[in-house]
């Protein structure tokens, strides 16, 4: 059975071969018509800043994407970029890179939108056409360093608190797919008083961490997801392939109570075999805010756990919805599913009957689990309903590509070859939590 990690390896190989083929077969016409302007384009003067702002966030040894899981090569220097120049040109021309999966109707709505404008695409193409010259390093514009360069690899900067398992966990050689939880209690030294956190950043302990989620439980509070079938407001966040760290807007935060238990939900997926074991001690960094927030943020999911995808289905829709009883800010969306998921959509239905497409991901890829974080928060009037839908393909073709058995009916479950339908959302009541501390409901019902 091919695992996702095997799939990744195979993809890397295929990509490498494709890249060589592209370099070999790049049309002569591409290089034939260079104008004087094109001829003067250089890496340092014209291209470095484009790559820095749009590519290097992933294409570097340590980046937002879990230590480079998602990017097979670093593109931080001319020497690193030059061998890939023609492949880069082809990738940006086809818009396969940078990867961004939301349709253009939400262009400009989200932070970190990895989309090159036409001028940037043409600059890269012309630079490659004119020979991909280096130019003078002194011509490079001054670019700010990545934050983690001064903060021990943390993208959001130096954290205020880092929580991790009590002991490193060895994921044994014979493990292929494993879901396991670890719980730690924050000590007095770690968290002497209740604190509000505005940001969280996960750092996984190896490339075979499929995903990692964390929840916080106040002293004496029971875990609720498994007990009530509800995704409670205890959620802190998750990270998976292609996902970014979270920083809430100013004035928004989540509460972390003194003495809380942090539950780490780990999902490991790798090829089993001698020498494949690894030791993990993934970490979770908190970024506190000193000023009390105006809005108490909630991390939960619009999800469905009672579905069953029939065998051999080409396109099976699973839906879920949540109605907001009070005026609410929608902060971010993160659709999460597994190997069979092919598309995701979030729609908003206003109480006056209007509707709006919030997010359309027509080609969902489990290996690019992007968080769509609003630049301008979306206001949901009381009575608004968010509906999330995901579509799943359980066919032999996709089974062969992704390594699953399409003859099985598939239900909600934690294994990679099970499925999930969780439309994660970050939201917060418009009302100040101090004015109406009970305003945020404690849980969201899944079905």
């Amino acid at each position, binding site marked *: 059975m091919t695992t996702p990690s095997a799939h990744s390896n195979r993809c890397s190989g295929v990509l490498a071969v494709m890249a060589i083929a592209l370099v070999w077969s790049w049309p002569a016409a591409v290089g034939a018509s260079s104008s004087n302007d094109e001829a003067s384009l250089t890496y340092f003067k014209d291209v470095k800043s484009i790559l820095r702002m749009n590519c290097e966030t992933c294409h570097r040894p340590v980046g937002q994407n879990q230590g480079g899981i998602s990017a097979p090569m670093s593109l931080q220097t001319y020497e690193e970029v030059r061998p890939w120049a023609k492949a880069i040109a082809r990738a940006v021309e086809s818009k396969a890179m940078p990867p961004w999966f939301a349709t253009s109707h939400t262009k400009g709505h989200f932070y970190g939108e990895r989309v090159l404008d036409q001028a940037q695409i043409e600059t890269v193409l012309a630079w490659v056409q004119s020979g991909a010259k280096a130019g003078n390093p002194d011509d490079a514009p001054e670019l700010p360093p990545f934050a983690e360069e001064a903060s021990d690899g943390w993208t959001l900067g130096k954290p205020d608190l880092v929580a991790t398992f009590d002991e490193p966990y060895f994921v044994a050689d014979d493990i292929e797919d494993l879901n396991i939880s670890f719980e730690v209690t924050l000590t007095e030294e770690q968290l002497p008083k209740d604190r509000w956190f505005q940001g969280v950043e996960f750092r996984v302990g190896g490339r075979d961490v499929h995903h990692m989620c964390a929840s916080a439980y106040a002293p004496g509070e029971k875990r609720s997801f498994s007990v009530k079938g509800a995704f409670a407001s205890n959620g802190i966040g998750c990270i998976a392939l292609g996902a970014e760290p979270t920083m809430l807007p100013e004035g928004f935060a989540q509460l972390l109570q003194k003495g809380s238990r942090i539950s780490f939900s780990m999902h490991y997926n790798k090829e089993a075999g001698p020498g494949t074991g690894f030791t993990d001690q993934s970490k979770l960094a908190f970024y506190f805010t000193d000023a009390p927030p105006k809005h108490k943020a909630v991390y939960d999911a619009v999800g469905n756990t009672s579905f069953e995808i*029939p065998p051999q289905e080409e396109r099976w829709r699973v839906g879920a919805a949540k109605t907001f009883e009070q005026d609410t800010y929608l902060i971010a969306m993160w659709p999460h599913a597994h190997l069979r998921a092919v598309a995701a959509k979030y729609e908003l239905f206003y109480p006056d009957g209007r509707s709006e497409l919030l997010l359309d991901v027509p080609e969902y890829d489990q290996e690019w689990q992007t968080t769509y974080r609003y630049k301008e928060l979306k206001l949901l009037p009381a009575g608004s309903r968010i509906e999330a839908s995901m579509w799943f393909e359980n066919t032999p073709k996709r089974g062969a590509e992704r390594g699953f058995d399409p*003859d099985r009916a598939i*239900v909600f479950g934690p294994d990679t070859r099970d499925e999930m339908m969780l439309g994660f959302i970050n939201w917060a009541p418009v009302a100040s939590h101090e004015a109406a501390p009970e305003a945020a409901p404690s849980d969201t019902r899944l079905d």
Partner: protein
Amino acid sequence: MENIKRTSQCSDRLERQRRIEWGLRLLQVCVALLLLGTASFAQQSVRRAGEERDAEAEERRQRALSQLLLRPTRNLASAKIQDDEILLHTGKLEVETVDFSTIDTLTSGDVQIITKAAASKLIAPRPLVFADATVQPSSKGGSGRSSYSVWLKRTEDGWNLVFNREADVWGTQRDPAMDIAETTLTHQTVETSAPQLKPSLTVSDSAGLLELHWGNHRWSAEFTLEGN
């Protein structure tokens, strides 16, 4: 004497040749047996692997079913007609919900929307036959069973049950283009109130009775499975 010696040497050579030939034949037989054994072992292994896969699939199915049975947010009814199992599950919707209160506001042609739960779902191994409709398989897949979302629809003089191919949508997400059948329901106002939407399936002989009971409303329809 010389001839005798030559004859003896010749017969020794022949004997050695015969022994070599027999040895070779024996070796061939052994190799053939070994190959047969290997083939048989491989076949058994493939069969065992297939059986294990089937067993694993069945175990997963059972696990899925038990998960479903344990789902804290769903009410489940199941029944067997002979060996064929039919399942009906609904959200645990209280009568105090807005969803219940909309029942009395529906007019002819309206389909009831449920905001607080996934759509009610029916799973059957073969086409369902009602008095005025046959519900054909919803899936092109090879599971041998079909699932449907089912929806209450107000009509001029009563209620219908609509079967929709999208079995796993939320109670607000019915796509009419995916409707595949509609049957008349018997509606009664009963004295005993069901505090939550409660599905029920009962079987007598080869016929079944599907019921939904919510508050003082009870909807029902008789059915059989095609082929029974």
